[in-house]
């Protein structure tokens, strides 16, 4: 073999090695992450996602009113939008709203509409804990968990989300109505896939850390919630994995990402200025 061919062979081999290095090394759950990177350029669907989210949010608000305290709503909305800057969804305007409910829960609707209940809010002790809850919901929006869980194509008999939200025909309007009804059922009764909840915990934790909040605060909040009366937890235990398994998974996330001993912000004083009586 001549020197030239030898060099050519080495170059080809090194290129193949380079290509292999860019392939994700782990499978299953890991593949979901690589998909996030590779296929998340679907900006054409953003308008449909927002329209659908508005329908779901308006349906939720028909049953539950927002807390009538402008300062608290403004504070929560500002914190949420601050966190959303780290969600890598610059195509969305996020909205955060505290709603009156005895159930301890928070809800993420497509398109960036996020609600937290007054009961959950009352249980918080500092801003980092609130950041953890909102970041978890932002992660659901980022990953489009509800849209994926509903399998819109099935709901609309072959229709896409864009067609459903177009209202182009009575059939689409009926299908859209059904889809938003099913979304509310998912949020309040049936829950998302368990793996979506673990993923939202993991992504939420990275969002709050990137934004500068202490990750342990979120774990402490989940521990506190787990101690609350079963009646107030009925909805969240029905729709989420157990607190024990979530906390175990979160500890692993903290370890894997090097999030231990970060000593980031918790801001109890600022949060106390916006306590809900």
């Amino acid at each position, binding site marked *: 073999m001549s020197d*030239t*061919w030898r060099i*050519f062979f080495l*170059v080809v081999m*090194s290129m193949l090695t380079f290509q292999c*290095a*860019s392939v*994700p090394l*782990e499978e299953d759950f*890991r593949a979901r*992450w*690589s998909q*996030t*990177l*590779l296929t*998340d*350029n679907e*900006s054409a669907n*953003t*308008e449909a996602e*927002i329209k659908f989210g*508005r329908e779901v*949010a*308006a*349906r939720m*608000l*028909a049953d539950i*009113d*927002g807390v009538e305290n402008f300062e608290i*709503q403004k504070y929560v*909305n*500002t914190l949420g939008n*601050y966190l959303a*800057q*780290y969600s*890598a969804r*610059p*195509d*969305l*305007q996020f909205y955060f709203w505290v709603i009156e409910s005895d159930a301890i829960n928070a809800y993420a609707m497509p398109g960036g509409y996020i609600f937290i209940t007054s009961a959950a809010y009352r249980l918080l002790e500092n*801003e980092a804990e609130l950041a953890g809850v909102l970041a978890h919901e932002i992660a659901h929006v980022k990953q489009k968990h509800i849209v994926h869980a509903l399998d819109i194509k099935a709901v609309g008999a072959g229709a896409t989300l864009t067609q459903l939200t177009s209202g182009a025909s009575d059939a689409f309007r009926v299908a859209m*109505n059904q889809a938003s009804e099913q979304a509310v059922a998912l949020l309040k009764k049936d829950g998302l896939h368990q793996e979506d909840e673990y993923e939202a915990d993991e*992504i939420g934790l*990275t*969002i709050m850390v*990137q934004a*500068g*909040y202490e990750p342990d605060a979120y774990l402490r909040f989940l521990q506190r919630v787990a101690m609350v009366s079963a009646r107030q937890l009925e909805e969240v235990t029905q729709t989420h994995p157990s607190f024990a398994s979530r906390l175990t998974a979160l500890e692993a996330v903290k370890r*894997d*990402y*090097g*999030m*231990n001993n*970060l000593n*980031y*912000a*918790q*801001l109890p*004083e*600022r949060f106390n200025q916006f306590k809900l009586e």
Partner: protein
Amino acid sequence: MKNMSVLLLGFLLSVVSYAETLYVHSSKAVLLTDRDFSSGTVALLQKGDAVTVLQRQTRWVEVEFNAQQGWVSVLLLKATPPSGIVSVIGSDDVNLEGDARMRASAVATAGATRGLVEEGGAQSMGFDFSELHQLETMVVTDQELDMFSQPVLGGGQ
């Protein structure tokens, strides 16, 4: 022999040009020295910055930016440049790009001109668009976000 050299040169150039580019999609992204949030900071990337991928792992990507190398969370990067905010609020679907103050003003105007009931009278069918419009008027400006972030990034306890 000369032809072979040309072929080899072309091949080498194609390898160089293969370098994958990703774009920062969060407002800021810390370029870290290692795959670990407790590691040191190399640089602070801004939304829209283009980085060259050196290697990709499960949750992290090693990148080069302005001749500096480091690791960024895979969650903050995408293959296409970030777009502006998409809005459907108003009479027709609107694409609003630019700063948050403009968006706030446009949203408030849209809310004011639209009235409190969504077209089609959906409110009577188990929807409350009037409260939805109320929350949609609460848009936060870039200046408010900057002020809000100061105690957080200062590590306030």
